[in-house]
């Protein structure tokens, strides 16, 4: 498990270290948080009507960490008291295993929840990480939208969902 707040790793993910990373006093945020919101994304057994056997995640790792740092900067611009940690797993994952773990600490719960939701939406939009789904009867790369960190409309959509 990485001790960095932002990491791409082939190790199993766990929320505990991330909670520790956003709960430490000092750094940019003043003092210890009063709230930590967390998110764990798990490999689903069914996707688009298919029975999923396993997933393989591939990343441009250095660019992914930079994308995470960019999301962190966006979060701090919007919610200055939030301290964020975000780890994404790569390699082969079985059903039920965690692919992404997020912790957002802040003095109060509203910002923590909003920042956590915003972060997962932005990860899906701009992190250079690809999912190769192996299902019963075949396999497919899951491809959605072109990754464009400067797409302001996408950013506003993420913001809208996080503050709904």
């Amino acid at each position, binding site marked *: 498990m990485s001790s960095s707040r932002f990491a791409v790793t082939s190790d199993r993910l766990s929320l505990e270290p991330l909670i520790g990373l956003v709960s430490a006093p000092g750094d940019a945020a003043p003092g210890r948080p009063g709230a930590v919101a967390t998110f764990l994304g798990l490999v689903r057994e069914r996707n688009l009507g298919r029975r999923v056997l396993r997933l393989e995640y591939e990343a441009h790792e250095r660019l992914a960490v930079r994308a995470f740092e960019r999301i962190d900067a966006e979060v701090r611009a919007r919610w200055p008291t939030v301290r964020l940690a975000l780890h994404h797993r790569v390699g082969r994952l079985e059903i039920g295993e965690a692919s992404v773990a997020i912790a957002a600490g802040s003095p109060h719960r509203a910002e923590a929840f909003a920042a956590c939701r915003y972060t997962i939406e932005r990860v899906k939009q701009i992190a250079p990480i690809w999912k190769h789904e192996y299902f019963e009867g075949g396999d497919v790369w899951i491809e959605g939208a072109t*990754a464009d960190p400067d797409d302001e409309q996408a950013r506003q959509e993420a913001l809208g969902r996080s503050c709904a």
Partner: protein
Amino acid sequence: MRVTIRLFARLRELARRDELTREVGGAATVADVWGALAREFPALEPYTRSVSAAVNDDYSPMTRALANGDDVAFLPPVSGGRR
């Protein structure tokens, strides 16, 4: 000048390689490198509208002019799930 090209996910599979180096013209842009690559590997051509790029580990517009030794990564669309 020479650039290193890196391919990810489905692009890597279609071209059957994850890294290659190519000689390009002095004023080449990211789009020029992609165009040459898609001619060399026609299976990549359908991605011309949806591919994005990173140069030296930073997202980059396709119009960026390259320098000798640059590392150019081509990225297929990301999962971008809405649920």
